């Protein structure tokens, strides 16, 4: 599903040139649950942004569903992104001015679904995340765990093939964190590919394998299944 070859990202400011990703090559197959770990500043988020088609690499190839997309324009990326990828962020990134229902509805609006279809899908997603009773509330009226469940609902509402999660439990207490991880595991079991950046070893345990980044390079790929076999 995803394949990168020598993916490199360099940030330039006036004086400094920072290499955030240095020739990263790896692959994620459909249906996999991959955790990306590493210390702060190792390039995890940059990698996730590029995989999520939010940003272009400076160098290297990126194959997404078989297309080489590293040279895609913002418009092409946006189109590919909204049809295939859902995002879950550490700080939830819900829009404060919209209520729960409207937040979850957002991707469907941009995909051009009709109002009736949207209602059905949003309610299904909220049901699945067990937050349907809060659909009229605004984000600031919810607890962190509830907000993250809304964010996950939003990520899955359009049935994406891939979910990218950036430290989804980082702002949650352990009970709520576990809840969210169970949700992600459930989604993965239903066939959604998940790539998750995390600091937490415990969360990483939910994944099939762990990719460790250090200074922009992959240091180990631990395929749990190999040991399990």
């Amino acid at each position, binding site marked *: 599903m995803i394949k990168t070859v020598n993916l490199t990202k360099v940030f330039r400011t006036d004086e400094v040139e920072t290499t955030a990703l240095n020739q990263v090559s790896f692959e994620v197959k459909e249906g996999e649950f991959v955790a990306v770990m590493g210390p702060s500043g190792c390039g995890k*988020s940059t990698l996730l*942004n590029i995989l*999520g088609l*939010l*940003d272009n690499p400076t160098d290297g190839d990126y194959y997404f569903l078989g297309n080489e997309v590293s040279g895609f324009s913002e*418009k092409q990326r*946006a189109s590919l*992104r*909204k049809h295939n990828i859902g*995002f879950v*962020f550490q*700080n939830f*990134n*819900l*829009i*404060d*001015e919209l209520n729960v229902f409207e937040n979850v509805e*957002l*991707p469907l609006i*941009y*995909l051009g679904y009709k109002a009736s279809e949207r209602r059905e899908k949003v309610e299904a997603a909220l049901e699945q995340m067990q937050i349907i009773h809060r659909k009229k509330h*605004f984000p*600031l009226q919810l607890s962190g765990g509830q907000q993250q469940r809304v964010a996950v609902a*939003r990520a899955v509402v359009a049935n994406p093939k891939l979910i990218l999660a950036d430290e989804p439990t980082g702002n949650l207490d352990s009970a709520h964190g576990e809840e969210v991880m169970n949700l992600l595991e459930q989604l993965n079991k239903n066939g959604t590919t998940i790539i998750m950046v995390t600091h937490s070893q415990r969360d990483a345990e939910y994944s099939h394998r762990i990719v460790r980044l250090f200074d922009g390079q992959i240091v180990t790929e631990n395929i749990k299944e190999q040991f399990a076999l």
Partner: protein
Amino acid sequence: MFLNYLKSALRNITKNKFYSFLNILGLAIGIAAFIFIFLYVRNEISFDKYHEKADRIYRVESDFTISGKHDQFAIVPVPMGPALKLEFPEVEEMCRFNDVGNSLFKYGDKEFYEDGFYFVDSTIFDIFTHKVLVGDPKSCLVEPYSVVITESIAMKFFGDQNPMGEIMESGSGRKYKVTAIMEDVPINSHLKFDALLSGSTIAAIQGGDAFNSMEPVRFWNIGVYTFLLLNQNADMQSVHQKFGGFYDKYMKPVGDAINASFDLMSTPLTNTHFSGNISSDLPKGNMAYIYIFSAVALFILLIAAINYMNMATARSAKRAREVGIRKVAGAFKKQLIGQFLSESLVLALIGFAIALLLVFLLLPDFNNLAGKTLEFDLFRKPELFFTILGVTVFIGLISGSYPAFYLSSFLPVTVLKGGSGDKGRKGGMLRKVLVIFQFAIAIIMIMGTLIVYNQLTFLKNKDMGFNKDNMIILELQDSAFRSKVETFKKELVKNSNILAATNSTGIPGDNSWIQVVKMEKDTAMVDNAMLLTLVDYDYLDTYGLELVEGRTFDREMGTDLEEAVIVNETTVKYYNWTDNPIGKKIHWGFEMDGSGGRILKVIGVVKDYHFNSLHNKVEPIMLFMADFDKYYVSLKVNPENIGSTLQYIEEKWNEFGAKRPFNYRMLEDTWGEMYESEQKLGVIFTISTILTIFIALLGLLGLSSFVAEQKTKEIGIRKVMGATLGNVLALLYKEFVLLVIIAFIIAIPLAYWQLDNWLQTSFVYHTNISILTILLSGVLAIIISMVTISFHTLKAGMSNPVDAIKYE
């Protein structure tokens, strides 16, 4: 404590340079505009108030009803003043002003046409407060042939020489001795004169006691401005109540004979400048414009204040932390209010200082526009300074009060935990209402400007029914020259650039001869007051008047000179001559007993033409010929080579032995002056509108910057969710455009109501308010507001979502 307030106020102002700049600029312009309008309005409402006895002085006016035709004049018959003084103990003194009209005066080799000279009674300085610099105010106007000149006239005719006792000669050769010099009449006097001639001169010229004769028939000739000084505690009302007896004694016999009646009207001197529209009045102010301008001044200030409120509350999230920390550190709510109010006050005071500078710099230009000579006498009149300062402080407090109370009420626990102090909803709603208010005003002003200009264009382009362009008007002031006018005309039209010439007693725009004539109505002849102009054979051709029936005057028809008359369409309608106006009779020039005069027969009807400004309705008028001195020569000329044409006319003028220097005017200019107050209104309105919009846009720029900043995260999230640039921009523009549209909808009825009222009451002939004009003002408002917010909106819309979602 206060120093601490000031320090933190200054720091906050310098820290947020962009917002401070927008606020100060808006306040400075707002206060400057306020000062200008304040000076203007103060000047307008101060008219004639400088006279020490102003509260006891009244102008008496005429209300004539002649054969059912009702006419009001600002002047009264010549003997009215002396008779009123004689009959009414309430009247302590009276003074009459008789306009000399545009006349030539000479001293040595200097000669000028003057139109500000009046014959007056010697009582003038007992009633009015004018400073006589040299000479005795009691006696200077007693002797015939005395003249009191103002300083300007003294400079103009005498230069450095002492004018006292010198002789000024009039165009007709009369010699006036300068008996006193007075200060120039202040600009806020409704009656501005340049020199005063003794009223006793009139008696000396006409023989007998012409200026004071109370012969009954003289009460029926309209004449002079007359002012009464009432006794202390006397009431003008009692003069009016007793006027019936006065009428019976002095006026009734003649009135009954000519089927006429008269009533006396009066206006307190201090109201004269704004009194209603009556004939023969001097140029006046317009109270409606005073209200409009005052409202505009207030609105501009309000809009600037709203800018401050809006930007201050919009930035509240940023200030919330500061409030929390100060509260935790022990600040009371009261102290925080003090702190925020100091900030808005300091801003307002900076704006105030810049505004003063602007006013000093721009006052000459403003005077030019407004046609005034206002002074910004800030230091000579401390009350002016303190008024403006007071207004500034008031604006500072108003604009600071809401943010102060709003911000200071934040709970430290919430804001320090990272909340914004409120849900952003309450402040947001108020901001929206205020922006709608600002734009409703701005849109009303845009509509106002467009309508005023539409009306000016209408006035300019309206077919007047006569030739207005390329007409040169000469005035024949000496009678010897008038007798040669036929040959003079013949000589002039020999020049191929002079296309036609006519000699008449009136011209379009100056047509005030009204006389009672007998008109054929049904089978009888009825008395009616009628406008008339004596013309010659060439009048219709020269002015391009269009005949709709009958024929024009014809030299071949021997009787035309004696008995032909041409009337306008309105006359035909008015007297119900519609089946056949030709041959209808008008009896003109009869004696009081109805004998004598001439019977005129209608030979033609001209299409109605606007011989008065479009403020007035076209009335019946009759044109005929008579062997009578006619004052005006109108020349239709080729617009090319006007210079050499004028030179030719001047040569002939001198060749024919005119006693007065050559002087001419263009008819278009006279007509332009009739709409001067509308022109001025247009210019002042435009400038006010531009300023209003500008200040409102400053606010919008600030708000859009804030909204764009606030929405950075939302934009980022939406983009991640698949929103395109278009989606995002629509979202941002929608926020403001919706407000402008609501403002537009609110503005339409208000503007329509006001403007329609203005058009209806000011003009008989006017443009209509078209849907297009209304839409145009709304579209203009939307476009300029969109352009204004584009700067920040585009920046926010195009930002990289990756940066935004990391933003916390």
